[in-house]
């Protein structure tokens, strides 16, 4: 049985990763999970300089999911490289660094700083709904997305994953723009913009008013978007949105994802990632599947 997948020339021991922002830099979950068991650890978004993030409350539970408006708090690339990257390099797993910025130059600076490191891939977050400048703007207009993708591709030494926003009319249009600009892979979906109101206080629950929704409730939307996108582009897709079990992960693979990432469900069950790896193996055994790649896009 072979659980290996290849994305843009990078080999993953299995198709299970962590979703950016939900797993810290791996350190925070290393009490629970042997990071060596994962296909990759995808780190929290990092910018060229430290970001404070949004005021609190930043998180709220909603039916079958949660809202977050962290606002990309991060220590900046210096501390990240010294501490988080150094930590992750002790493990036998791919490291994918999620990059955020307010301007194209911000992104390019981080991409350049990472060029001589052992990082396997870069995931470019152009889809965070919780910061006002940059970020989301690049991910909601096809021409801006094309522009930033091609600029990053020119600088990047590692393969580039563009992380797409579901908060668009037609996600395939965005996917095509990223592909045309040279993106090596896509990851999707980032969170769906939502809102929660406290009726007793007549106030927004989140200080930011809106937040990004994730968790099991968004899964059908994510599966549909992965399927549509897989029909529209040739580059590989990393699928995420509400994955909490191997069954969920396999849906994404069948819809056309080459790999999957576990996000908010880490908070519910910190062992989810490894349980998904084991569950995919059990499923392959049950159906006599030799290569996990046979599952990719196999829905009919």
């Amino acid at each position, binding site marked *: 049985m072979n659980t290996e997948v290849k994305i843009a020339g990078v080999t993953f021991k299995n198709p299970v990763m962590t979703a950016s*922002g*939900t*797993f*810290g830099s791996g350190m*925070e*979950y290393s*009490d*629970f999970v042997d990071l060596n068991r994962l296909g990759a650890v995808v780190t*929290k978004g990092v910018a060229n300089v*430290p*970001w*404070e*993030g949004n005021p*609190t*409350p*930043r*998180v*709220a*539970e909603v*039916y*079958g*999911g*949660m809202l*977050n408006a*962290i606002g990309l*708090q*991060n*220590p*900046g690339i210096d*501390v990240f490289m010294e501490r988080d990257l150094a930590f992750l390099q002790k493990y036998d797993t791919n490291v994918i660094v999620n990059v955020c910025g307010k301007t194209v130059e911000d992104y390019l600076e981080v991409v350049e700083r990472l060029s001589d490191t052992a990082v396997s891939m870069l995931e470019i977050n152009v889809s965070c709904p919780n910061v006002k400048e940059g970020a989301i703007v690049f991910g909601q207009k096809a021409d801006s997305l094309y522009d930033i993708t091609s600029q990053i591709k020119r600088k990047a030494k590692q393969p580039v994953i563009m992380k797409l926003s579901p908060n668009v009319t037609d996600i395939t249009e965005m996917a095509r723009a990223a592909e045309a600009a040279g993106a090596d892979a896509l990851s999707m979906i980032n969170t769906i913009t939502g809102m929660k109101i406290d009726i007793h206080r007549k106030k927004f629950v989140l200080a930011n008013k809106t937040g990004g929704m994730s*968790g*099991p409730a968004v899964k059908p939307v994510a599966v549909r978007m992965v399927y549509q996108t897989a029909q529209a582009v040739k580059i590989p897709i990393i699928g995420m949105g509400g994955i909490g079990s191997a069954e969920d992960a396999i849906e994404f693979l069948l819809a056309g994802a080459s790999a999957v990432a576990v996000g*908010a*469900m*880490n*908070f*519910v*069950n*910190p*062992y989810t990632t490894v349980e998904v790896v084991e569950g995919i193996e059990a499923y392959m055994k049950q159906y006599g599947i030799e290569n996990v790649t046979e599952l990719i896009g196999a829905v009919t």
Partner: protein
Amino acid sequence: MAQKRKVTATVISQKQIAEQIYDLWLETKLAKDVRPGQFVGVYPHGESMLLPRPISICETDKEKNRLRLVYRVAGKGTAEFSACKAGDRLDILGVLGNGFPVDRAKGKRVFLMGGGIGIPPMLELAKAMDGKKQILLGYRNKELFLEEDLAEYGDVYVATEDGSVGTKGNVMDIINAYSLQADVIMACGPMPMLRAIKKYAAQNGIEAYISLEERMACGVGACLGCVCRTTKTDAHSHVNNARICTEGPVFEAGEVDI
């Protein structure tokens, strides 16, 4: 620090001890790892409710692997917990947070100050602490709880907002009413109370440790949901926003901008 785990705990007993306040004993191996001021995340059963509810640890019985949680019903999750009976199971994540620096109180005059649902962690703290313990408790009304348990470990003073028991007002009014003195303060309670304590401690040159609350998601420092403003750069993100679940919930009062 002990390894964090998610485990299934068994309910030993539960009773209501005041309006909306429940007293729950659980059996779990996590009890052994607990330091005063730490908390656990308790998971509701329903799949519609995902996130662990942070609940401070009131007391432990380490020999019997038991852990006591005293909590207020504040929403659907805690309402579900309040219906648990002996033999029921609850998934918990722990042990979380840093806890109080108990040793700072050794041989000193201490105020242990608890307001409302901030009172429970004072019990494990009082049990572990070696010092002159003056325990100042603030309640809304005559629905007191844990004051008898706490009286075993120090001198208890009560204040109620409506004046029905003890000093009328809050824990700060107790200090004035009895002209109490302390070298160290350890406190947990609502934000206005913690602000008043921070100010009082600064004015009187007293060392103070306060336990903060915020909406949390992961509980283990990964999501950066539950931060508080700090006066110096924080250890994790270097941006004056420390994670209450990890660097906290207990902070030296001067460290936080509240």
